[in-house]
């Protein structure tokens, strides 16, 4: 996940890198996501979140739809 100056920069970069454009959103949303995702990493009883728990966090910050769907088969530590 990268931070760009503007949406025009994203489009130019994707075209030059021959990468399909993904999803865009602002830092406020990412700040909320980062807090919910990582807040327990320094807890002694940390455990890996289940896929359902991770999906619920994405939902809670409004990241819904096929792009944000975590499949049961994926391997994740986040």
């Amino acid at each position: 996940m990268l931070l760009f100056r503007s949406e025009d920069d994203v489009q130019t970069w994707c075209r030059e890198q021959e990468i399909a454009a993904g999803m865009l959103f602002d830092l406020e949303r990412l700040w909320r996501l980062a807090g919910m995702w990582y807040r327990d990493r320094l807890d002694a009883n940390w455990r890996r979140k289940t896929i359902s728990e991770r999906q619920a966090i994405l939902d809670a910050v409004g990241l819904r739809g096929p792009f944000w769907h975590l499949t049961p088969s994926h391997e994740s530590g986040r």
Partner: protein
Amino acid sequence: MTAVTAQDSDIRLWIYQHFADTGCAPSPVEIAARFGLTPHQTEQALHRLQRGVDALVLIPGSSYIWMAEPFSAVPTSFTVRSDRRQWWGNCIWDALGILNLLGIDGEVSTACPNSGQRLRVVVSDGALAEAPGVVHFAVQARDWWRDIGFT
């Protein structure tokens, strides 16, 4: 799934605390010394933490820590600073995650991958005070961990 032991959990927490305190990953030798383990036992523990609960990402083919998300053991384009302390995040998400996890104010420095313009994100009083630019997720969620380095 590889079974993780109680001591593995203690090692995980110590690694995270080491990152938080120093900005660096401990080496396998340091971990072995801290927990009274042989080199082989240490390697086994680190690989269990990677395979069993995805608590770490090791440098491929080694037992050296690459990532303990949100921390990166190697320099990245996402520098996190608070007072005189410094860390590296694996991406903009992780860089913000470091400040969030540590519950501190600070800033993230990066640059727009297209224009090269320096971008500075500032957290003050636990909230974003300067939030320039736009975040781009190139990889859909189901593929985030297929190539974590690219993601």
